[in-house]
Each structure stands twice: as structure tokens, then as C-alpha cells.
């Protein structure tokens, strides 16, 4: 796989980032170097190994389903400038 401008732009689009030409040109060699280091793991045989997504086994810790007071609408909306009729106001979806 070649690490070029096209790939960087594809990743950036997925990540909702608009990169400047300078950022793209910086990221290309940096990505090459880092991904080459990541590929060191190919040397290890892992066919029969289970992946660990946590450092230890964690069982489902679910709480009791008890009705309790939650945060008020006012509190929830407090940190947003964009709001209307007790809702968040967002950009156009369509």
C-alpha cells in the first residue's frame, strides 16, 4: 500500500478533517515512518491468540433499572450556543 496524498485525503475525509497542503505534505513521510514501525507486529504469530480490548476481563456491570431524577434540560443545553425551543440546533442534515 502506498502512502500518498490520495490516501491521506481519504483518511482525512473519514475523520472530518480538512488538511492544508502543508499538513498533507508533513503527514505523508510521518505516516510512512509510523506505519512502518506499526508493521513490526507482522513478525509475531498470533493466529490462535484472542484479542484483548481491555487489559483484564470485565464482566457486564449493569446497574439496577431504577427511576431517578436526571439532569434538567436547562443544564444539558447550558454549554451550547446553538439551541432553539429546548433542543440543540445543528447544521443542515440534508
Amino acid at each position, binding site marked *: 500500500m502506498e502512502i500518498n496524498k490520495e490516501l491521506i485525503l481519504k483518511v482525512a475525509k473519514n475523520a472530518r478533517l480538512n488538511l492544508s497542503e502543508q499538513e498533507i505534505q508533513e503527514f505523508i513521510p510521518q505516516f510512512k*515512518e509510523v506505519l512502518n514501525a506499526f508493521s513490526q507486529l507482522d513478525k509475531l504469530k498470533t493466529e490462535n491468540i484472542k484479542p484483548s480490548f481491555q487489559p483484564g476481563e470485565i464482566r457486564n456491570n449493569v446497574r439496577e433499572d431504577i427511576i431517578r431524577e436526571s439532569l434538567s434540560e436547562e443544564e444539558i443545553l447550558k454549554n451550547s450556543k446553538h439551541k432553539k425551543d429546548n433542543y440543540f440546533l445543528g447544521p443542515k442534515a440534508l
Partner: protein
Amino acid sequence: MNLQEYIKKVQNKEIDIIEYTKKVLEECKKINKEYHYFNTISEDLALTQAKALSKNPKGKLAGVFISVKDSICVKDIESTAGSKILRGYKPIFHATAVEKAINEGAIIIGKTAQDEFGFGGFAVNVGLDFQIPLNPFDKKRATGGSSGGAGGITQKASFPHIALGECTGGSIESPASFCSVFGLVPSYGRVSRYGLIDYGNSFDKLGPLGKSSDDCALMLEVIAGFDPKDATSLNKKTESYTNYLKKEVKGFKIGIIKEAFGEGIDPQVKETVLNAIKKLEKKGCTIKEVSLPLTMKYGIPTYYILATAEASTNLAKYCGMRYGTTEELKGNFDEYFTKVRSKNFGKEAKRRIMLGTFTRMSGFRDAYYIKAAKVRTLIIEEYKNALKDVDVLISPTMPLLPPEFSELKNLTPLQNYMLDIMTVGPNLAGLPHASIPVGFTKDLPVGMMVISNYLEEGKLIQIGKEFNN
């Protein structure tokens, strides 16, 4: 006056806590002007808490001044995780650890400087418009990171203070080492993550930085425990960690990590840590060499694949809508979110989002993300085996002395990541570990890292105590 004596005086109303808090805040402002350890000093909150305490001076932390890493939420105090994208965000709740400290009489003095979202080992990747904290021993050098402000203020504060830090891959240990203070990272799940602005959920751990092992033990005792608000917090009994301060280290079996004293380690750092190990030997510990070949060779790529993958998903929520920095609502949602994110994330945040997005992308996921998760299993097993024969494992905390800013500028991102060689291992395995200040060389501090088995934080406190001033 040690911390316990001070707490007793506060409890007995022998100290005018309101007047004292005012003095402490003045000192914080003065230090901050010179060293940039705080993103916010929470003056009003501290004075309100001091007033309440003057009427009812109770709690295990009565009157103790606590600084909180900026990524840990404090109600009504701007909490940005050092990122411009969270400018103006004032949480409507306390993180559980903060709440527990307040309930024990702590006074919150402010939010400490850090690498943006924890993305760095030197606290130089601060968010756009934030200031870089400076090493308390030499302003040309880094504090270590990402909890750099926490390390710096812990060293400089002349008042009774403990920092609440957070570690993903070395963010408590590195600043503890470079600022010559104690830093304790508990087992994964021992302290609730509720109210933490996440970096990597399967790695993040809150923990204390203090001037002594006693300070860390006390703080851990207060913040540890199960929290129904954090599904990954451990539903297991906590301990009286301060009890371990009375126990001797005699009889401890110590494993010296062979690879951590080999090539690429500053010889003076190595010598200082080996001298500290000799001190433990004199106290009756036995020493044995232990090898962790997989961890030391593959730890860095494994950590960076998994941590950036988790970070890229966590940071997907920052889009300028519900909190933090916003822009004029123009264009469709893709255009709007992209604009807010591109303008307000710093360079390292963008780089880690990009790396993490790439390793999770269709076609690459198995080769990178799943592969790394499997190697993580092998690394966890390697530690489990090593800790069958010994009580603790020891290495230097950092392979180098606190670097000058000019040296860091010349490093590529990979060279930068490689400097986490000592600390990523125990963080991949979720094991408790501590950085203990063990001396100076060329007037710069050296930290020794001690790793114990799951939930054996007590052993770290015992060993740490041997190096209290």
C-alpha cells in the same frame, strides 16, 4: 509540617483556612506566571470551599489543596483537556474522583496544563492558544507529560497539595519523573473514570501525584472504589492504602527488567536507578533479572495502534454543537463539523485522529487494530508470567533526563513515541505502577518505575516510602 499534621490542624481549627487559601491562590498565580502549570485557577470555587470548611472542618483531606488535570471535569470550572475545541466548556457535574476528594474536605485550586487530550509525553503538544509548562528545575526543559502542569505544581507548591492526574500510556509517570515527585497509576478500573474527558478508554486511569508516597497513598484511599457510573470500574473492595506506609519492604523479591537497562538508556539515569535498587537490597529485598522481550520490542507499536484507534473514535464527538467551541451554523453537517474540527484541533491531535482512523478503516483493520489487540494479549501474559516469581518489576521511568525544548523540536513523531518505551508496557497490561524520585544527576531529576501485580498498589506505596525525603 507534614500533611497529616496539617490536616489535624485544619480539623482542630488551628489554621484560618480562608486566609490560608487566599495566600495559596496568590502563590499559584505567581508560580503560574512564570511556569504555566494551570489552564485555570479556580479562585471562587476554592474560597467557597474554604468558607464551608471553616465552619465544618472535616474529612480525610481537610484543607488539602488539590489541582486537577484539565481533562478531569470539575463542575462549573472550564475543563478543556488542553484543547481549543473545548474552550468555554463548563461541566455540569464533577468527575467521581473530584467529588470524592471534595467530600473529604479537599479544596480545588485549578485545572492543570497538559498535552491536548493527553497526546504527548512532554506537555509540549498543548492545544492551540495554550501555554507550555516549564520544568521546575530548568525552564529550558520539559515537565514531561501529558500531566505536565500536575507534575510541575506538585514540585513547586510550598503548601499542602496533591495533584489529581490521569495516565493513558505514561502521563503520570513521565511528569513525576521529570519534576521529581511521586506519581501513582492504579490498576485499570480501580478509580472511576466517570467525568474524565477520554483519550483511550481501555487505558485511561486517574491517579495522584504527590511530594511523598504518603500523599499518594492518602489520595488513592479517597478516590479508589467502585462507581456505578463507570461500567469498567472494579466492583472489588478497596484497601486502607495508608496502612502500607507502616510496613517494611524486607523480603520483597524485585525483578530488574533486563531490556530496560540496555542500549538507548542515558547512562546516568541507569546508574541512578541501579543505586536506588542497591538501597532496596540493603533494606532486605532480593534482586533478580527478568526479561520482557515482547513488551520491550513490540510495546510501542501495540500501544500506539490501540490508543490512537480509541482516541480517533473518542474525538469524533467534538463537532461544535453541544459544547465547546462553535462556529456560525453554515453549510451542511459534514461541512460544518469539518470546519470546526480543522480549525480547533492542534497538530498532534490531528495526527493521532488520522492514524487511528486509518488503522480502523475497512481493509486495514485486521492488519493493524485486531493484530495489535492480539499482541496486547501476549504482552499481558508476559507480565503475568514475570510477576509469578517476583513482587515488583523495576526500570527507569524515562530513558532520558528531562529534555530541552530545542531537542524535542528535532524529533519526528515516531522518535517522540519511542521515548514512551518504559511506560507503555504496564499501561497495556493495566497493571499498577509508580514513578518514584530516586535522585539527581547533573542537577536534573531521575525517576524509578516500579510495577506490581493487579490490585497490589500497596507494594508500590511501601517501596515509595523508602525514598520519602
